[in-house]
């Protein structure tokens, strides 16, 4: 439906068209069963459809079969089998991606890795832990309760941590704690031919290393196109002693964004700083039953020791007031903080609730902080000129913001306007020295923009690396490149 149909197969770059599919070789499913056992292989249509889409609106593309390996050895055997028979392979974690990363556009076998859910090698002194794909970020933090440590990367969904590594995910805490990339110390990868690779060497989790090319960073963000991430060693952080959250309302989008820039330039170590435009603020307030004025709003969180926190609060209040902000009311109890962040995290659903029955599409550009005010204001004007419903929400501390476009998929004119808008937005971000995707990944829909962002040399280099590791293009074909 909608955007993909409007885009048409011609927009996709890549050596194969999205739609070519070969049937599985004879006796192949039997061979899969021989590796993992009958109950762990399914060719039922309902199961395949479940595994053929994520939370984006890309058309569901079911794989030919779904398998559930229970251990890394099985993943290796299955991969070797698929490699021998030239069958495409698609890794699957929680299916909560936003760019169609798990859609099996060329069929093949979907490897549902959720049954591998071990948490191992937890070291409280080294601040590291190794997790398998079945472990989600909330499950890990729950496991860490009582240790004084946490894993701060928090995309909206309760996603698989290895899946987050595969898409280079980020969240509201990135401004202080970083995205996935700096927080992954090692990856246990099953390569397309079944060989096992430890990107930083087996059993190692050095906090810094200068030993050879950075393979860990290569696989982070590879979106399943270079291998299966079957275990990730993660960097943990100490929980803050104290935290405080507040909203602040501003007279204009420019004022809110300028305030963000100044807070960062004042070197306040803000933990989270999120922007909601007036449409989003109104929608979120209504959806979550909180009294939030429909105006440009910032939602900030500070972390620190008790004394340090008071100092940060004072500095922040001054800067907010300087930019015409008002309505500061610090919440320090876990219940109130939880309520404010739950309101922010349900932004997607709040946006959809603005026009029930419509589809949603989220843009994801990221620009240098200095260019942020201009880009946001221009984008807002473009939204209004195009007559689109697109509440804006964003991790402004990183220069990253999302337009949650809500539109009627059955209306080709509106779908066309949405597509044109997102292309203009992508190019606006690129022109400002930014990226077309700050955290969601390239997946199916942004491959054309990737060429514009990296240039021909960049894209050719990516293709050479892909050809070196996956010469038959079997790992999640049709994505990224």
């Amino acid at each position, binding site marked *: 439906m909608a955007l993909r149909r409007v885009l048409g197969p011609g927009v996709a770059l890549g050596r194969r068209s999205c739609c070519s599919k070969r049937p599985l070789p004879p006796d192949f499913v039997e061979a899969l069963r021989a590796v993992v056992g009958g109950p762990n292989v399914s060719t039922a249509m309902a199961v395949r459809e479940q595994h053929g889409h994520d939370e984006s609106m890309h058309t569901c593309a079911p794989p030919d079969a779904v398998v559930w390996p229970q251990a890394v050895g099985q993943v290796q055997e299955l991969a070797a089998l698929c490699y021998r028979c030239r069958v495409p392979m698609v890794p699957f974690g929680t299916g909560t991606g936003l760019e169609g990363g798990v859609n099996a556009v060329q069929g093949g076998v979907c490897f549902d890795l959720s049954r591998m859910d071990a948490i191992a090698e937890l070291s409280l002194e080294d601040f590291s832990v190794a997790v398998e794909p079945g472990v989600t970020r909330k499950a890990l933090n729950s496991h860490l309760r*009582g240790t004084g440590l946490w894993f701060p990367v928090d995309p909206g969904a309760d996603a698989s941590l290895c899946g987050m590594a595969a898409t280079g995910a980020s969240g509201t805490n990135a401004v202080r704690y970083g995205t996935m990339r700096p927080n992954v110390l090692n990856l246990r990868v099953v390569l397309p031919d079944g060989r096992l690779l430890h990107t930083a060497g087996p059993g190692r989790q050095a906090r810094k290393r200068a030993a050879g090319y950075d393979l860990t960073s290569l696989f982070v963000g590879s979106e399943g196109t270079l291998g299966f991430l079957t275990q990730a060693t993660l960097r943990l952080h100490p929980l803050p002693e104290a935290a405080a959250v507040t909203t602040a309302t501003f007279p204009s989008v420019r004022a809110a964004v300028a305030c963000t820039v100044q807070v960062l330039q004042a070197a306040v170590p803000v933990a989270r700083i999120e922007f909601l435009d007036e449409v989003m603020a109104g929608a979120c307030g209504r959806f979550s039953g909180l009294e939030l004025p429909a105006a440009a709003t910032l939602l900030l969180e500070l972390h620190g020791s008790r004394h340090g926190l008071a100092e940060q609060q004072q500095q922040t209040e001054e800067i907010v007031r300087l930019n015409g902000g008002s309505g500061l009311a610090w919440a320090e109890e876990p219940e109130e903080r939880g309520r404010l962040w739950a309101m922010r995290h349900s932004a997607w659903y709040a946006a959809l609730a603005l026009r029930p029955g419509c589809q949603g599409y989220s843009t994801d550009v990221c620009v240098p902080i200095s260019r942020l005010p201009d880009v946001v204001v221009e984008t807002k004007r473009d939204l209004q000129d195009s007559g689109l419903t697109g509440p804006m929400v964003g991790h402004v501390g990183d220069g990253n913001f999302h337009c949650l476009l809500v539109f009627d998929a059955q209306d080709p004119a509106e779908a066309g306007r949405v597509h044109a808008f997102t292309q203009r937005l992508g190019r606006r971000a690129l022109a400002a020295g930014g990226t077309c995707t700050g955290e969601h990944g390239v997946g199916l829909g942004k491959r054309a923009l990737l060429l514009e962002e990296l240039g021909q040399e960049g894209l050719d280099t990516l293709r050479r690396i892909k050809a070196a590791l996956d010469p038959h293009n079997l790992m999640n074909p049709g994505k990224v490149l």
Partner: protein
Amino acid sequence: MAALRVLVGVKRVIDYAVKVRVAAGGGGVQTQGVKHSLNPFCEIALEEAVRLRERGAAAEVIAASVGTRLCQDTLRTALALGADRGVLVEVGEGAAPGPREAAAALAALVGRLQPGLVLLGKQAIDDDCNQTGQLLAAMLDWPQGTFASRVELEEGAVRVEREVDGGLETLRLRLPAVLTADLRLNEPRYATLPNIMKAKKKPLEVVGASELGAAILSPPRLRVLKMAEPPGRQGGERVQDVPTLLQRLRSKGRV
């Protein structure tokens, strides 16, 4: 009111996220090498006590547990979450103390420590008994406010909002009293590294059960005869039409 001492009971239970398995022999569940943690309802009770102290309404929070030496870890966690000191009533290996034994041990501790308020979780997630608070109040002949979702201290008394089947009931109890915490009472804090470090230096006393008196040592009145997992799920069966469905149901004696 500033001299109020609060005793909080905390129980060491199998972590809620663990897939529990029946032990070989069917006498209980596997506990060896399985992750244990502080019972979530006890955490809520402890959080309420610590907030009372932080507000100035209480002077001291003592965490107490009844069990083997392994419970010391649970008490250290309670200390990291804000308790001032911990007491373990140590029982031997063997049958784990049930609600009656735990209540007897806590009653003896109350005699020793003289708290003005006892806070417990409403139930433990391993046995779901929901009895210890009530038994303790009866043994001490103190008023009880169970399933508390809101607690307010007044002069010599405590106002408790209880979650009951019909809605919310508010009681005013004279102190000393026993309260048990329900889910919505508060959201417990996480232990932070500095607090975990400080907790290592807080006093943790171990008291043998025999020191506290005979009541605790009487043999348990309940014995687990058998524990078994529910039967595994059988595969389904597809039938082509309604007459066949009825025939299959009849042959299985369901109709």
